[in-house]
């Protein structure tokens, strides 16, 4: 039979002479009797009772343990304790010694912790087997006669250790092993003729359990640990038998007479006698020993023979430092070195044993990248062999590491579509699929559907549970859409891809009503969204249903689903959508829109302005399209109602435009009236040629907007062919009464018209007007006359002042009203003062304190005018603003804007302090010395200037004068206070001089044209200043002047 053993590999290298013959040196004279290893050294014992401790660098420490011989030794793996059994005396007297190899005495001998006799009962028997539990609390010694002694307690101390004879039988103990499980401690025992196990968990309650009736030779048993279940392995000629605490386990058939078993990691090393010397690999050039020993290393886990070689007789196998060391009878040391994983794998790859490689790699915790690489190579190999299914299985294991395109490319052939599908499915399951993969997979499915009829697979894939959703639904839908629309739809529905569902239904299936049903099952937000999105199409194709749905959506939306669950529904606030968003959907469907909006209004929705606008528009649109008169009326009524409804906030101007567009005159008129656009109403009537309405309109709104009449007039004249006389008359009467239009314009208007209007039509009007004009003219001329007279009077006065003598008759001081006494001061104004009175009263020494306030006012008035004169902009703006520009201009004339009296005044000012200060008459040629009467003279000059003013202007000025004097009177009291104040100031005469110098300086500045008053003039002190500013507006005379009295007006 060919295959009676496991597959064979060479995963180990056998190296000779690793110790360079050092061990052979040691044992030139003696024989190695015992070997063991652990705790980082190899322990060898010789027939002379010496023990050798070899370190890794083959440094050897020797000590004598026994006088005669060492028989057994056991080195604990992880502690420095070494237990030996040997003879110190001749005869049968085995001694157990426990050494602590970490403590050496002076002679280099390790500390011996314990020496005790190893005797079962009272018989002197050779010990045949020694086993120490790793915990150093248990030790078992087997004897040649079959007895077994178990030592409990710390093995390093004699006292605490208790021994117990467990067995007393005839067959030699050949093997012992402790095995510790989580709950129990077992002691396996092999003899020549039996295998058994003791449960020694509890002291004095050891339980023996018979495992087998066949035993094994010495050294041919080993405890195989590190597996899931530890086995006690026993080597026999036909096979290796395994035992568990429960009984027999597996058995591995390995031929050959076993010499030795050793366990290392997951390898079982079997040394057996071979009869095939030709296989020996010893490099001895001498004749190969006929009785070589066969080393077989089994990988129990993976079930391989991982090494097999023949070496001449082997003494022992030691495992230390992560490898096997083999000592042969010639004391040569071989090193059995495991190859690294990579070379193992490459070995396997060469043989195409990928599955084995994978198993090995996995068992050795190979990293995932490496594994993936193996899977890929395996897959490639299977591919080459044509085993595509197998290949795909391997490739599937690479998912996540290997680029899927590598695999996909290999299977793109249509023959392999099933395998490709498998791969892609796996890819999806593991969540590594991209869009393209999904697409490809779905395409595969559809193709498979077509050929094989496996329609289920697609469905299954699509309808996978939510949890295992491992593809992109969007792509799936997209792909399915082409291949199998039904699935696409299903998919969309299942995954609530509403958008897709609706799109598919609409675009591919044209099932609009279904779509509406579908949407109505959605939540409000979704429904709203999709209605906005697809409403257009839906309304076009299913107008009625869509409208119904929209009504629901905009008033009281509850999805059908929630309706079913009334409890939930009651808690939910019904949501409303904004109808505005849907209006555009009804683009070409006014009737539906009207229906929709009416419904909404009926439901009492508060709609926004644009909605109402739209409704209005569509009302009119429908209205415009209707043929039936009654229908039209109905709509017109509706429209008007809508317009008149105060709750409805439509945009008026837009409504107007809409009404205009549809020439819906009721609406137009209503809106005009609403907006107070009476002119528009009038115009509307005019265009309609509806004279009675025109009149009615004028009458109705004339008091609010008088120009209506004028307009009516114009329209009458221009547009109407035959203006009814009564209309015209009424218009004219109103115009005349309200003075809406000057007669001239009326006549003009009447004249321009293309219509025949006879004089008769307007006679009464004209006569009326003329009479009134005449009356007015007369009034004005009277006024003029009066003014003239005044002027004359003033002129005369001036003359007397200039040339006539003035008799100063005042006998009393104007200040203190006591009879005058010299020294006195007299003014031309007929006021006389005591000098001391004057000095205490006067503000300025050359002005009469009594007249001063008045004069000052006048001066300021003039100054203000002067000031205003430069305000060209004010003038222009007034001119522009004024209805009657002429009157503004006239007024400015009146103020003397265009006069040049300024010069005169400057002189006056300059020459004033004649009597006290030396005057400088540098610039002005016309300077006169007025002396004490300067003030009066000043006034005179002023009057003179005024004479030059044109009469009409003069009239204005008179009025002004009156006004200002009246104001002056009011302000006098204030003035008096000022007087007092200033008089106290003036009392200080020392200040006086510099003041006048100041003036001189001002004067010189005046040459440049500046008003010397400007610097003195304090706007804030002047009580008239503000009045002057306000003058144009507030002057009560002004209006009269402008409108009625001014003869130039009109």
């Amino acid at each position: 039979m060919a295959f009676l053993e496991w597959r064979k590999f060479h995963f180990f290298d056998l190296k000779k002479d690793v110790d360079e013959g050092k061990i052979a040196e040691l044992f030139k004279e003696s024989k190695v009797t015992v070997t063991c290893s652990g705790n980082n050294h190899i322990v060898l014992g010789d027939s002379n009772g010496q023990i050798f401790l070899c370190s890794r660098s083959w440094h050897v420490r020797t000590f004598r343990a026994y006088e005669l011989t060492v028989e057994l030794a056991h080195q604990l793996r992880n502690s420095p304790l070494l237990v030996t059994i040997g003879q110190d005396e001749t005869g049968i007297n085995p001694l157990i010694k426990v050494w602590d190899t970490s403590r050496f005495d002076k002679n280099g001998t390790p500390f011996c912790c314990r020496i005790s006799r190893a005797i079962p009962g009272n018989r002197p028997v050779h010990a045949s087997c020694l086993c120490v539990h790793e915990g150093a609390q248990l030790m078992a010694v087997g004897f040649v006669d079959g007895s077994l002694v178990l030592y409990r307690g710390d093995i390093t101390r004699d006292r605490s250790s208790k021994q117990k004879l467990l067995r007393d039988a005839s067959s030699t103990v050949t093997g012992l092993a402790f095995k510790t499980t989580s709950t129990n401690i077992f002691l396996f025992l092999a003899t020549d003729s039996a295998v058994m196990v003791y449960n020694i968990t509890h002291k004095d309650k050891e339980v023996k359990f018979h495992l087998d009736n066949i035993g094994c030779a010495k050294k041919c048993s080993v405890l195989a640990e590190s597996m899931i279940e530890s086995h006690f392995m026993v080597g026999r000629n036909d096979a290796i038998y395994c035992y568990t605490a429960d009984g027999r386990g597996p058995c591995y058939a390995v031929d050959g007479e076993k010499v030795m078993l050793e366990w290392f990691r997951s390898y079982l090393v079997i040394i057996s006698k071979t009869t095939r010397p030709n296989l020996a690999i010893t490099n001895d050039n001498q004749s190969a020993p006929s009785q070589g020993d066969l080393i077989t290393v089994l990988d129990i886990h993976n079930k391989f023979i991982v090494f097999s070689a023949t070496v001449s007789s082997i003494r022992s196998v030691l495992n230390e430092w992560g490898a096997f060391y083999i000592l042969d009878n010639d004391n040569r040391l071989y090193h059995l070195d495991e190859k690294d994983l990579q070379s193992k794998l490459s070995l396997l790859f060469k043989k195409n044993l990928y599955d084995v490689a994978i198993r090995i790699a996995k068992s050795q915790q190979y990293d995932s990248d490496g594994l993936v690489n193996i899977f890929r190579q395996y897959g490639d190999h299977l591919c080459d062999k044509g085993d595509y299914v197998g290949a795909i299985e391997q490739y599937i294991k690479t998912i996540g590491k290997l680029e899927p395109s590598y695999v996909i490319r290999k299977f793109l052939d249509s023959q392999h579509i099933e395998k490709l599908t498998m791969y892609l499915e796996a890819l999806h399951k593991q969540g590594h699929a991209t869009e393209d993969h999904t697409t490809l997979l779905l395409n595969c499915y559809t193709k498979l559907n077509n050929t094989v009829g496996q329609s289920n697979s697609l469905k299954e894939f699509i309808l996978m549970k939510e949890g295992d959703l491992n593809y992109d639904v969007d792509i799936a839908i997209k792909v399915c859409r082409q291949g199998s629309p039904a699935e696409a739809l299903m998919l969309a529905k299942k995954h609530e891809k509403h958008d897709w569902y609706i799109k598919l239904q609409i675009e591919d299936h044209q099932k609009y009503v279904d779509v509406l049903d579908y949407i109505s099952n959605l939540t409000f937000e979704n429904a709203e969204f999709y209605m906005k999105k697809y409403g257009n199409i839906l309304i076009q194709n299913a107008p009625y249903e869509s409208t119904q749905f929209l009504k629901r959506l905009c008033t009281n939306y509850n999805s059908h689903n929630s309706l079913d669950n009334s409890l939930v529904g009651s808690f939910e606030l019904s949501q409303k959508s904004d109808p505005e968003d849907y209006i555009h959907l009804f683009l070409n469907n006014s009737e539906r829109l009207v229906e929709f909006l009416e419904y909404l209004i009926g439901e009492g929705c508060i709609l926004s302005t644009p909605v109402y606008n739209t409704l209005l528009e569509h009302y009119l649109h429908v209205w415009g399209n209707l043929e039936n008169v009654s229908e039209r009326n109905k709509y017109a009524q509706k429209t008007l109602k809508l317009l008149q409804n105060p709750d409805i906030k439509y945009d008026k101007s837009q409504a107007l435009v809409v009404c205009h567009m549809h020439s819906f005159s009721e609406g137009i008129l209503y809106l005009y009236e609403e907006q107070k656009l009476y002119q528009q109403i009038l115009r509307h009537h005019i265009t309609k040629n509806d004279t009675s309405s025109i009149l009615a309109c004028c009458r109705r709104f004339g008091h609010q907007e008088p120009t209506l009449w004028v307009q009516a007039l114009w329209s009458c004249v221009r547009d109407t062919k035959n203006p009814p006389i009564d209309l015209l008359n009424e218009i004219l009467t109103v115009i005349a009464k309200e003075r809406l239009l000057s007669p001239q314009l009326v006549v003009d208007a009447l004249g321009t018209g293309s219509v025949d209007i006879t004089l008769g039509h307007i006679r009464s009007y004209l006569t009326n007007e003329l009479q009134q004009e005449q009356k007015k003219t007369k009034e004005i001329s009277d006024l003029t006359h009066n003014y003239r007279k005044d002027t004359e009077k003033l002129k005369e006065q001036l003359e007397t002042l200039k040339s006539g003598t003035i008799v100063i008759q005042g006998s009393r001081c104007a200040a203190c009203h006591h009879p005058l006494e010299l020294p006195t001061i007299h003014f031309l104004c007929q006021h006389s003062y005591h000098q001391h009175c004057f000095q205490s009263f006067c503000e300025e020494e050359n002005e009469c304190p009594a007249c001063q306030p008045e004069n000052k006012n006048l001066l300021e008035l003039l100054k203000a005018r002067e000031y205003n004169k430069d305000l060209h902009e004010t003038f222009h703006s007034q001119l522009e603003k004024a209805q009657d520009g002429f009157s503004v201009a006239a007024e400015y004339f009146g103020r003397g804007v265009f006069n040049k009296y300024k010069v005169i005044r400057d002189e006056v000012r300059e020459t004033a302090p004649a009597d006290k200060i030396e005057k400088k008459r540098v610039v002005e040629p016309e300077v006169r010395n007025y002396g004490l009467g300067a003030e009066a003279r000043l006034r005179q000059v002023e009057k003179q200037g005024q004479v030059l003013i044109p009469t009409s202007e003069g009239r204005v000025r008179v009025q002004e004068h009156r006004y200002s004097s009246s104001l002056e009177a009011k302000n006098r009291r204030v003035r008096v206070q000022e007087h007092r104040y200033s008089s106290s100031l003036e009392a200080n005469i020392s200040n006086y001089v510099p003041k006048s110098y100041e003036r001189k300086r001002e004067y010189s500045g005046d040459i440049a044209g500046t008003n010397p008053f400007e610097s003195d003039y304090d706007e804030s002190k002047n009580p008239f200043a503000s009045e002057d500013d306000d003058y144009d507006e507030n002057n009560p005379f002004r209006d009269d002047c402008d409108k009625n009295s001014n003869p130039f007006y009109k």
Partner: protein
Amino acid sequence: MSYAYLFKYIIIGDTGVGKSCLLLQFTDKRFQPVHDLTIGVEFGARMITIDGKQIKLQIWDTAGQEAFRSITRSYYRGAAGALLVYDITRRETFNHLTTWLDDARQHSNSNMVIMLIGNKSDLESRREVKKEEGEAFAREHGLVFMETSAKTAANVEEAFINTAKEIYEKIQEGVFDINNEANGIKIGPQHSPTNPSLPGAGGAGGSQGSSCC
């Protein structure tokens, strides 16, 4: 893991009938299409529950090849149940059943429960042995019969569990001497009336222990 009983099984049959696969399917619930030959005896274990009792099944999966017959024979003894497997797609495996049966009867204890298994029932197209033939054979020799598929796992559980049930019944009937290890039945530690670990039974512990072997 504690158990009430431990039953030992042996699976026998010609090479390649799927013995190892049956075991793998039963213990690991997987199927390995390519399987190396069994060299010697492989071993699997699984807990099942019968009649509310935990029962541990220890199964020896033997090599079918003639060369290993001597090894496998030693396993008959100490097995409480045997699964005699043939391949329904290969008639010769069916023909060899008599030999196997004789072998088993000869080396095992007489009470061993033997179940006849026609494996590879998934390969219906290649069937060579009719189900009826199997049934007839089983009837004739007093076996329980079942067709299984290690690949699809059909009837695999049942095969093992039914066998276990039968053994359990026999125990209840007292046919088996449960104290005799050689019968392939072991009483679990906590069910053993002579469990030495139980307090109070300490005094008799030592002698009981030795008496049970």
